[in-house]
């Protein structure tokens, strides 16, 4: 990749002074995130989700299904990675 002179990134000392990356902010973000997660599940008590195939109308079904699907996919990818991952230079000779 060619990078022209004016575009070359200025290498500065890494410094985590941005408010978004401060531990206190990240803690607050987690709290808000968990609160939102709880609200989306509890909201089902007010808005009933129509289950087309039975189970998909259960309380928190989508939450559990989404979470477990992701865990499964990450684990499958991890396992497959053991077989098919190769160094970047694999195809170069």
């Amino acid at each position, binding site marked *: 990749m060619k990078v022209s002179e004016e575009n070359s990134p200025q290498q500065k000392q890494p410094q985590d002074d941005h408010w978004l990356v401060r531990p206190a902010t990240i803690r607050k973000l987690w709290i808000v995130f968990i609160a939102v997660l709880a609200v989306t599940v509890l909201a089902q008590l007010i808005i009933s989700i129509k289950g087309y195939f039975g189970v998909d109308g259960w309380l928190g079904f989508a939450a559990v299904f989404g979470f477990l699907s992701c865990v499964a*996919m990450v684990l499958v990818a991890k396992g497959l990675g053991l077989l098919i991952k190769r160094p970047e230079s694999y195809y170069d000779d």
Partner: protein
Amino acid sequence: MTELIIPPALVLLAGAILTGVTRGIARTGVLLLAPLIALWAVWQVPDGVAVTASFLGYDIEPLEGSSLRRLFATIFTIMSFTGALFAFRQAKWYELAAAQAYAAGAVGVAFAGDLITLFLYWELMAIFSTVVVWCGGTPAARAAGIRYAILHLLGGVILKVGIEGVVVHTGSVQIDAMLANSFDSWMILIGILINAAAPPFSAWLADAYPASSPTGSVFLSAFTTKSAVLALILLFPGEPVLIWIGLYMVFYGIVYALLENDARRILAYSVVNQVGFMVCAIGIGTELALNGAAAHAFAHIIYKALLFMSAGVVIYRTGMTRCSDLGGLFRTMPLTTICGIIGALAISSFPLTSGFTTKTLISVAAQQQGLALVYFLLAAASAGVFLHAGIKYPWFVFFQKDSGLRPKDAPWNMGAAMVLFAAACIAIGVFPELLWTLLPYPVEYDAYAADKVLFYLQLLLFSGLAFFLLLPLMRRTLTISLDTDWLWRILLRRFGEGVLTLLRLWGRRAQGLLNALVDRAGPRLMRQLSSAGALGGSWQIGTTALWIAVLLTAYLLIYYL
């Protein structure tokens, strides 16, 4: 037809040629105006066959309109315009010209009324997309471009075999819906599926697109796979095998993207993933499902180009593409970060973005047909899209850790193109009716039913939770992942090398035998050839005349026999 109809593909082709002969502001004008004129021309194409011609003794229909065809041609020309806006100050002129010719191929396919026209434009796309890959300019781009060209020309041959078969057996070159139930139709299906990056030929996409220039991958992401989707809608609606091919592509894309370290390769794998949703919908084949496939293709071109644009800006500014080298760029690239996040939310079908209104059409189609397994697999896949593209891509590129890089934000034209497409993602998400009116079948569908929104919010947000809890398992490694192309890049080459070695070995042995023979028989032969020998010595005239007479007699005998 009395009124003049301009084929939109020819407008883009003319633009591509003019790009080469103009300079400066005129070239910029051509690059930006040709797609807009083509877009206008797209909307002048009436329903039904607009142009007929004779080609090699066949009656062909180079221009046939329908709402479905105009929908695809519309997004192809919009993509051509926005891509040109994104790239015109940074890309080489020949890349821009090739990209416009490539778009012409896609628009030509969209309006092709017969199989011969479709094939010609299909090959036009193959040629000029290869040029766009080569414009990456690196040895890796050159090699990837050659692999890309070989596979696509091979796919073209397979498609051609199928088309020839159909023409011979039915006598018709018409584009009619068919099922994969004969050799001919299978060949056509396979030829199209190769361009759709279906298994076992998915690898070309993640091989070639990330090798192109920072601007090239924006064009590449749009045309080849989506024109294949259109061809499938026209030729194979409701072909059941497509459901399973589509589902395979969906999960293939997710798993490979999860393993990937290169930012653009993550996006390339997610193209396969998204096209999988469309292919699956075409397999379901109801009006709702086909609407879903078409609408999703439209929305997908916009948000996927937006994602590739954000990655392109990052590569243009930093020269880096590995997630392990990037991170923390949100500090100095706020516009690119926000546009990248909007694209990521749209691909994840987050409510209020385009993906939500189009992808749920496909899920509802599966549910209405009572395909429970397909429905739940698509839901799991939606969660997986959020995992690999919705969070993983923006997280590793723009947040993650502080890489120490402080690049400038996007140049103005790149920024403008991104803002345009980011706005389109949100506009289609908030006002889906805008897109509904363009769809091939009438839409009676409430995208924002409260329970559906809640279902998807739960699904997506808990996928987000899974991502952050599983982050330690997703540490980036400096690796690539093997794919089926290993078979021809390594196995086939080793086989070829083995055959060559064997031939060389045999050759050497044969030469040895020959040498031994010469050593033994040579002196005797030489003696015969010397002046003392029977062959080398001078003969008596009589002997010579005798032999000539014998030979002439033999010749005469053979002649009369």
